[in-house]
């Protein structure tokens, strides 16, 4: 198509109207660059349309001054900046709320941890108080035992196997029980226990008062044992776990006789 045919086709009138597709607009633009007569034809059409459309207004022209002060000279520079600002605000807002949120969570977590800790400590304290009052009661009880003139105290001395060992028996005949203070005995080896004996001396006849199974676990090493015998002496031997029927005399740790005057 040469420029004359192109002009005659009517496409340029549509071009000015804005009725063409993007592709057709591109083609007309290229034709205008190529043929000066196409460009001048477009200018003439535009001129006619500008005049025609101007007649559809009823009142007089509007002054440029009416809009002049609304035209921002630095508008393109301002727009990106003002776009960024709310973004930063938004981001910092989110960041702040995240921070506050996680801090709150952390505080709640800490609070719970502390509550648990306090509860545990309180429980432990109560247990300690309980224990202390128990041991105080025990100690008071022991003191009354030691001070009771009715109670006979019998020291048991260390024997050949363990000369440094010692023990003490407090015998309360009224209640038919003894309090054995075994603090002076070494910790028995594994698989062995101490066994307490009541002895008659003439003839020598031992009666088992039981084994000290809780020896290692017991803190004050004071044991209360029933004794209904007319004991003349007390002895402690080391025996295999579970105890023996008769004492193993080679393993006699301590021995003490009851004073004759009583």
């Amino acid at each position, binding site marked *: 198509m040469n420029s004359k045919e192109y002009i005659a086709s009517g496409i340029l009138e549509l071009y000015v109207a804005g009725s063409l597709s993007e592709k057709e607009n591109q083609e007309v633009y290229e034709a205008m660059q190529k043929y000066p007569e196409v460009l001048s034809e477009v200018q003439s059409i535009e001129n*006619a349309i500008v005049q025609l459309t101007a007649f559809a207004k009823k009142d007089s022209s509007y002054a440029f001054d009416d809009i002049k002060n609304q035209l921002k000279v630095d508008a393109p520079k301002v727009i990106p900046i003002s776009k960024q600002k709310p973004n930063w605000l938004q981001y910092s807002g989110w960041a702040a709320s995240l921070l506050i949120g996680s801090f709150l969570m952390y505080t709640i977590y800490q609070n719970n941890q502390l509550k648990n800790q306090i509860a545990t400590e309180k429980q432990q304290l109560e247990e300690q108080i309980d224990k202390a009052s128990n041991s105080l009661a025990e100690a008071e009880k022991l003191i009354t035992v030691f001070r009771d003139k009715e109670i006979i105290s019998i020291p048991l001395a260390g024997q050949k196997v363990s000369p440094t060992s010692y023990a003490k028996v407090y015998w309360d005949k009224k209640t038919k029980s003894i309090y054995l203070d075994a603090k002076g005995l070494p910790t028995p080896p594994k698989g062995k226990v101490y066994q307490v004996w009541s002895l008659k001396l003439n003839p020598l006849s031992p009666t088992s008062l039981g084994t000290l199974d809780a020896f290692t676990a017991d803190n004050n090493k004071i044991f209360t044992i029933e004794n209904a015998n007319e004991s003349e002496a007390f002895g402690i031997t080391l025996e295999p776990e579970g105890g023996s029927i008769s004492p193993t005399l080679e393993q006699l740790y301590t021995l003490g006789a009851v004073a004759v005057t009583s």
Partner: protein
Amino acid sequence: MDLEQLILQFQKKDIKAYEKLYTMYCDSISGVVNNIVKNNTVAQEITQDVFIKAWNKADTYSSKKGRFFTWILNIARNAAIDYTRSKSFKQSKQNHNADFFVDILETSDNLDTATDTIGLKEFVTKLGAKCKSVIELLYFKGFTQKEASEELEIPIGTIKTRNRTCIGELRTMLGV
């Protein structure tokens, strides 16, 4: 300064260049807007908005995509059509009955005498109905060739040739 230079200066935010372009096209743009909204006060507001909008999006215009006049004409038609969809327009609609730009011309008593000496008013009055409708749709309403062909129920090729003939007559009369 030729048109191309003016447009380049406008895109660099040169207010003086823009004032020249405004003077060239303001009446045309307000004519197109008035033809759609049919209210002088509203037409003035919209026209001013259109020129502010065009200034703010100056960097989006490219001569490769079309004429500067066509670009601003598009902004104006869209703004005016947007207004016709608004509540305030629908409420005032019953007050006017002018359908075509020619009706505005024919009923106008405020025409600039200088331009009227050209005899445009007489010309459009004499324009055939075929020309009136095709010019109305393509230039004042912004219809595409295809939309105009569907609206007027004539083949698409006929729109193109008929429009060329009508604009040809207009140019003869205006001497351009």
